[in-house]
């Protein structure tokens, strides 16, 4: 399915499987902690109100990144816990799994963080997150009416995203 005319997207989307909607929700944050997008498809348990939930998620990732960099047994660079890091520096974690869900994470050097929560049997979603990042670039960043740093309110992006996530195996 060609979304963007003749432009080749790298990577090309994985094959669509018919496993229904098994993604629970997605968050997209920018480097200042603003939640650009929050969409849920399948979330039965709501613990906090939306704003607190987003803050919690962002805080969690911020701490996890710092922690994983500190605990790295292989890295040569010295990292101090709590010291702010440049986005993309140090080792970066990409997913964690519990018995009820899997959280996949991707951060770009420009500070855009993508978080996708799915069922625990999902495989490695790094390529999928890259594809979603491409969607973000094409439908949101390139839209001249979009102000960077504000929440995304574009139906076209939302529908395309929904369609893509529905196809994730």
């Amino acid at each position, binding site marked *: 399915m060609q979304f963007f005319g003749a*432009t*080749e997207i790298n990577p090309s989307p994985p094959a669509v499987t018919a496993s229904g909607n098994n993604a629970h929700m997605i968050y997209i944050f920018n480097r200042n902690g603003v939640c650009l997008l929050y969409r849920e498809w399948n979330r039965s348990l709501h613990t906090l109100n939306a704003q607190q939930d987003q803050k919690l998620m962002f805080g969690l990732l911020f701490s996890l990144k710092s922690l994983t960099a500190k605990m790295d047994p292989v890295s040569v660079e010295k990292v101090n816990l709590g*010291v702010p890091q440049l986005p*993309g520096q140090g080792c970066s974690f990409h997913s964690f799994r519990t018995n009820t869900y899997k959280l996949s994470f991707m951060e770009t*050097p420009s500070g855009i963080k993508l978080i996708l929560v799915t069922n625990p049997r999902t495989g490695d979603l790094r*390529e999928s997150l*890259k594809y979603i990042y*491409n969607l973000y670039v094409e439908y949101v960043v390139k839209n001249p009416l979009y102000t960077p740093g504000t929440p995304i309110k574009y139906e076209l992006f939302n529908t395309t995203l929904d369609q893509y996530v529905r196809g994730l195996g």
Partner: protein
Amino acid sequence: MPAVAPRSGEAIFASAERINSELFTLTYGAIVRQLLTDLEEVDEVNKQLDQMGYNIGLRLIDEFLAKSNVSRCVDFKETAEVIAKVGFKMFLGVSATVTNWDAEGTTCSLVLEDNPLVDFVELPDTCQGLHYCNVLNGVVRGALEMVSMKTEVTWVRDMLHGDDAYELQVKLLKQIPEEYPYKDDE
């Protein structure tokens, strides 16, 4: 899953949708012309072009990162190489060379032999102070700011002023790491 290798500037440029380069050049020329008519002062026009470039750069960085797949650059030297070889090639179709590194490695020059923005352009006597391609300054500055680098970008050589090439000097002022944005009162 193995990481996807970064794509070269050539490959991305070849796969991108094309428009007529004359259309691009003439559109840019029309923008500069209109700014000169509206603002009249050459310095104001330079500032406005830089601001426009800055706004472009803020958005361009995401497209660049998405298409080129480069991971975080280790130091400023690598950053400059990536801008010159991948960035310029991808968006303008010409690659630049990186020269004139200073002792600390925080200032360098990007030299462009060929610049599609200035095809057919000759500056009249009334506009001798105009930096016609000032939008490029803004783009580099805006894009680098989104990857946590505060820079200062100035023109050293400009073919429209009689020099033999276009030389942009990029100076790294400081790196701004990500701070935890929420206040600790909650």
